């Protein structure tokens, strides 16, 4: 029997989607609906990817504070983008925009994230201070490298980079969206199949091995899947630093269970809900576009401070 809380979340998400699609519908209905539906699909897909990847990442690394983005992932994305502008020029960068660039972005981000994540495994696993330090230092490193590259490029080209510095759900390419979906579906399926094993991974390496799990191999597989999700969603809409943290914390708080069969769908639903409602309210009611990311960063950042300073450390 499906969990009641999951059903409630699902119903809320459906309502939010309906609100997003049909609120203030005027003019050429078909055209607007198509536009909105694309945007909605992107929101839901990215939401699910960010929510699920963060929960899996936190389980594998054994902490509740770090997320892939806090590990400096989005700064890395910006660095890659500004390097592209530097080497290809803004014209080349704009021309390259399309499926090829999307694939290149994804591949680059996956390789980089694996290198980054591998720093977390091994002897330092579970050492929260070390992980936060690594994350902060890498974030800083990537950010200052980005700043350095931005100095080198033309002011007019700077504007091009600036566009990708905040997450934007405004202009999502349908081809890219289809490609992302094609990649997400098998990854989601693989993670879903591993969900019961994730419950055991959360017990820590020693207990997991004692219970007969091939822990080290499984962790690598899981981090690979996380890398794929994070890379694709970042390439699709740009960086959303604190969304994952916000969503994972809410999912754990709401479900209060160690079972990932419940946690993962909860995270995906909550994430979709936050994005759809947030974007909907901003676009339809406040009439301000592309500031959703700022709000999410604001609340996510506050939550991060709360978790680090006052909250539970695990």
């Amino acid at each position, binding site marked *: 029997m499906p969990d009641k809380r999951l059903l409630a979340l699902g119903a809320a998400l459906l309502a939010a989607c309906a609100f997003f699609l049909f609120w203030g519908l005027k003019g050429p209905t078909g055209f607007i609906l198509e536009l909105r539906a694309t945007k909605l699909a992107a929101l839901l897909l990215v939401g699910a990817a960010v929510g699920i990847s963060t929960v899996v990442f*936190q*389980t594998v690394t*054994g*902490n*509740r504070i770090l997320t892939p983005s806090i590990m400096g992932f989005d700064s890395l994305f910006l660095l890659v983008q500004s390097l592209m502008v530097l080497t290809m020029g803004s014209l080349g960068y704009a021309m390259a925009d399309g499926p090829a660039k999307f694939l290149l972005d994804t591949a680059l981000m996956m390789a980089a994230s694996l290198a980054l994540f591998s720093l977390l495994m091994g002897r330092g*696993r*579970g050492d929260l201070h070390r992980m936060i330090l690594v994350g902060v230092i890498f974030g800083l490193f990537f950010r200052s490298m980005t700043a350095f590259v931005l100095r080198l490029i033309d002011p007019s080209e700077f504007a091009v980079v600036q566009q990708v510095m905040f997450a934007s759900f405004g202009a999502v390419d349908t081809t890219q969206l289809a490609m992302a979906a094609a990649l997400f579906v098998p990854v989601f399926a693989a993670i879903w199949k591993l969900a*019961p*094993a994730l*419950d*055991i991974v*959360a*017990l*820590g*390496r*020693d*207990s997991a*091995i*004692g*219970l*007969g*799990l*091939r822990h080290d191999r499984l962790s690598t597989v899981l981090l690979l899947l996380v890398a794929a999700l994070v890379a694709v969603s970042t390439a699709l809409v740009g960086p959303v630093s604190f969304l994952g943290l916000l969503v994972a914390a809410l999912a*754990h708080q709401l479900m*209060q*269970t*160690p*079972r990932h069969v419940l946690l993962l769908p909860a995270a995906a639903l909550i994430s979709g809900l936050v994005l759809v409602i947030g974007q909907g309210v901003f676009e339809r009611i406040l009439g301000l576009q592309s500031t959703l990311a700022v709000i999410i960063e604001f609340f996510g950042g506050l939550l991060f401070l709360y978790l680090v300073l006052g909250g*539970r450390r*695990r």
Partner: protein
Amino acid sequence: MIAIRNLSHRIGGAPILTDVTLDLPKDGITAIIGPNGAGKSTLMGLMARLLPIQEGKVEVDGLCVTRTRTDLLAKRLAIVTQRVGVASRLRVGDLVGFGRWPHHHGRPRPEDHEAVERALEAFDLVELRDRFLDELSGGQNQRAFIAMGLAQETDWLLLDEPLNNLDMYHARALMARIHALSRAGGRSVVMVVHDINYAAAWADHVVALKDGRLADQGAPRDVLTAPKLSELFGMEIGVEEINGRPTVLHHA
């Protein structure tokens, strides 16, 4: 029987274990004793495949630890270590339930629930089953993790310093429970013990390690003698016989 043959282990060039050959008898409680840094936990970790074996061989009831599939070994041998980093917010009942994973791989059957009930009862955890682990005292926590190992229903139960952080009341209660398991429950228990008197009072077999080498092994009466213990720990230790058990006077 756990057969350990020519086992050596190094961490970063430093020898932790050197050429240990040893048979741990089935049935009863085996206590591993020795000073800090003698390699007790490493030996335990190697036996339970938590660490990769570099040199030598370990067989659990004839199954080679490195070559046997890890999920099959999990039905023969359970280990409870002291280093636990649990990422989830767990209830006691959930934790003990995870001990059944080797048997059901995510789909608990009725007999799994029964085994969990038995483990909860054996360690007096029935009333605590809905409490979160982070709300428990150290002793209750320890009991919950050992109950998880028990629920695994393996022939072998390996416990790394189960008495750590327990006061004498809880330490004795826990030892009595483990002893009962090794008798009525038919489990073979191997445990690392720091307080020698617990080994003297409850163990059937004692293994002494020093500087990564096997110093001695045998019945408590034979191993826990004043000259041997003084040599093992490098200090003057007196041993008196009280109620037919050796009692170690190490505190003054």
